[in-house]
């Protein structure tokens, strides 16, 4: 696979800006820390040469930004990793932005690092990190360079990558990959194999850490509502305070339900969670249940496909059968 570097992207962006194909570029910008890369919009090549960055921390999914960006004048360039392209398609399916106002460049991806992983490997004095082939080299103040295997330290979403194929683009840089599916339901299945009490204890422990920062919602490319029900005083469920019990479950269950059948499993929710709650396990549960009961469905794989929860088959299984079939019968 051709390695995509900062230079390649920069060159592509600069030429598209120069030719007038686009007037803005949605890209990544260096943050305070090495792992703290943030999305940014560049309007000229000069800024780009100064601030644009591309490394193994550029995991952010850009698709959601297109909703706002396409409201502006002119075309915007976006780089789509495989994950992002699914969200891109899903948003198009839901008529959330104008395809004509986007120039999409597909880029291959074989996994992006999470800030939390790196921070865990080098809790103190991390000054830099880089990828060198299969190795991840961390520069630290106290321990010098620490070299670890890149693949072994990928976050869950990349370890169990659903697809290395960019499904929507105007132009592809490098070679496109294939749809994979590296056991992404293993963790869900493991939870299903537990007893109800064990599962409750697991989630109680996870969700009780939630601080209701709404980062998961804000980053989610499926959570693009003009006004979220949890922010809407008229919805009856508006609630921003935190509590230790059911409140968080309500939020996370409803959020997962609202994106069920629309979630592209990009894993951004878990990436951004400051409390490291494995939120993707909620979404994957729905995807797993949908696949098992209504046939395999990948949101965003095709533009215009009908989401499973706004669809039905006469021969669908009953609710009780679905619950029991998903490990509910364990005694």
């Amino acid at each position, binding site marked *: 696979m051709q390695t995509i570097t900062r230079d390649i992207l920069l060159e592509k962006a600069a030429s598209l800006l120069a030719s007038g194909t686009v007037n803005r570029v949605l890209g990544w910008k260096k943050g305070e820390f090495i792992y703290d890369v943030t999305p940014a919009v560049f309007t000229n090549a000069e800024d780009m040469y100064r601030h644009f960055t591309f490394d193994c921390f550029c995991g952010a999914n850009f698709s959601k930004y297109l909703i706002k960006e396409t409201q502006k004048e002119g075309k915007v360039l976006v780089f789509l990793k495989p994950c992002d392209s699914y969200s891109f398609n899903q948003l198009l399916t*839901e008529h959330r932005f104008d395809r004509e106002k986007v120039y999409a460049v597909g880029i291959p991806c074989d996994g992006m690092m999470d800030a939390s992983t790196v921070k865990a490997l080098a809790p103190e004095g991390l000054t830099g990190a880089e990828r060198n082939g299969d190795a991840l080299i961390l520069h630290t103040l106290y321990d010098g360079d620490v070299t670890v295997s890149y693949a072994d330290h990928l976050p869950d979403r990349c370890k169990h990558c659903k697809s290395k194929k960019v499904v929507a683009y105007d132009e592809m840089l490098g070679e496109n990959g294939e749809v994979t599916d590296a056991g992404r339901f293993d963790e869900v299945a493991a939870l299903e194999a537990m007893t109800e009490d064990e599962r409750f204890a697991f989630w109680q422990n996870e969700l009780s850490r939630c601080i209701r920062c709404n980062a998961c919602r804000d980053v989610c490319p499926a959570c693009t509502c*003009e006004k979220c029900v949890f922010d809407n005083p008229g919805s009856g469920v508006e609630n921003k305070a935190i509590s230790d019990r059911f409140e968080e479950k309500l939020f996370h269950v409803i959020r997962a339900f609202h994106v069920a059948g629309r979630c592209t499993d990009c894993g951004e929710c878990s990436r951004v969670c400051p409390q490291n709650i494995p939120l993707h396990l909620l979404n994957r549960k729905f995807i797993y249940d949908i696949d098992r009961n209504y046939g395999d469905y990948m949101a965003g794989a095709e533009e215009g496909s009908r989401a499973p929860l706004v*669809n039905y088959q006469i021969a669908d299984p009953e609710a009780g059968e679905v619950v029991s079939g998903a490990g509910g019968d364990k005694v």
Partner: protein
Amino acid sequence: MQRIGVFVCWCGSNIAATVDVHAVAEAARHEPGVVFSTDYQYMCSQAGQNMIIEAVKEHHLTGLVICSCSPRMHEATFRKTAANAGINPYMVEIANIREQCSWVHKDMAAGTEKAIILAKAAIAKVHLNTALTPGESKVTKRALVIGGGIAGIQTALDIAEAGFPVDIVEKEPTIGGKMAQLDKTFPTLDCAACILTPKMVDAAQNENIRIISYAQVEEVGGFVGNFHVKIRKKARFVNEDVCTGCGLCTEKCPQKKVPNAFNLNMDNHRAIYIPFAQAVPKVAVIDPNYCTMLKTGKCGVCAKVCTAGAIDYKQQDQIIEEEYGAIVAATGYNPISVEKFDEFAYSQSKDVITSLEFERLTNAAGPTAGKLLRPSDGEHPHTIVFVQCVGSRCAANAAKGKEYCSKICCMYTAKHAMLVRDKYPDTDVYVFYIDVRTPGKNFDEFYRRAVEEYGVHYIKGMVGKITPENGKLKVQGSDLIADKQLHIDADLVVLAAAIEPDKSARPLATMLTASMDTNDFFTEAHPKLRPVESPTAGIFLSGTCQGPKDIPETVSQASAAAAKVIGLLSKNTLKGNPCVAQSDEWMCNGCSSCANVCPYGAITYENKEFRMPDRSTKVRRIAKVNPAVCQGCGACTVACPSGAMDLNGFKNNQIMAEVDAICK
């Protein structure tokens, strides 16, 4: 803040016996917003309603909670009362403390406690009620009748008589249906053709009626008052406007081996044919499966002999699109296939026939010109056995029979038996029956005449087995009265096959969004009180598509359906159900989830420019609900992730208020 009045009904002792109505009224009094609370023996009575009206005036009430029987019973009543009192009818909520409380709980304490909670839930909901006004839609003053049998003809005639245009869509080349195939009719024994064909002619000549024969409904859109229907008129390869019905072509066509469906394939007609002499429209039709010209391009005899020049081998199917205010289903019935009953040997012997085949055999216009002859050898049968309930009342095997009673068989079998004995007194006639069911005017008298005057042998019992042997049919059956097993050597056996709805009914019901029962009969809106309407507004039911019926019943239902249609078409506008979905354009994402689940296609999208708080403008795609089309199911409200879609009368916050009140 609403000013709420609570009215607790005793319903005599129906509620008061298990619910302490005073306690309910008292508890309600202390709920926020409740300014008046009382109880009364019969709230739905005139006095009770007056009490409500007085209270509204005296206490300036803005919302009413009636704790009474089911809203399915009296919601409409109390909404009218509210309107009479000068408040919006949708400011009323009913707490069902009879069917769902006093009648199902025996303990007074538990019943009272639950009634109070139900009252509180209704109070919580009415706090959030808003005045609703039904939308209005125009009514297209034209009706569509699907099916041109006696039911469809009668319905169409009655609607046309009232001055409304009506189209009959008939899938066969002629109207007339099953009745046209019958010989005589019970209990008067007048000939079916003599009473049916004048009606067919009436229909053809009525200027308000258009007969679209050899056609089928292909697509139905719209809603009550405003249906849009696509009809496919099949090519008959004969120009209907030019053909004079002289019939010369049907005699000259060289292709003679086409099974005659009108005579139940007991004889043949040509590839170009007129189904029967009195067909309406009396126009020839070419069967493309047999016509040599259409199959090979070589022949053209009919075109040569047709002096009118009506033959058109290039004719194509034609699509007719029309708007209708009301649609009547009159799709009729068919006898079930009796081949599956091996014991009756229908497929083994030509001399085992169904009752409808028997009708054709005795009909003067039938394959034997009315002489009763055995199909196998054309001989006169001397012993005839009639078997009743073949496939009717058969609960054991749904693949074979029907659980219901087909209703008409007892009477037509008595008719057949009587006619045979009348014409051929030398014939022995046996009827095996389980029960003889003859409710109906002059029906039992008719059956008794068959026994007493005509000497038909009625045998209480069922035939177990029929074996064709040496040109005879060995019939083995039980005689339960004599406690004997009978063995009869019969020449002809007639099976009274169960009847089932026409196969076209199920796809039609899907197009009409009309419901059906498990037997594929159309469901009526209410089994007793609304028997000629489908639950889907604007769809009416005529004849056997709703359930087994004889001719007099079919005709009365046909006229009843016509009366309902006339009632609908005589209105200029219709008031809709105001409890429809509504989208908040500020919250709508335009994602199309709602339109995906809407069964009525009531939701469309538009791009709208919004002025944002920062004075910028933004164009967004938003959903619009057509209130005339929306039926208020609420599927869209749950599909909508942002909560932009809500349902009037059952708003999210109203239902949650009820939930909160119940779980308090």
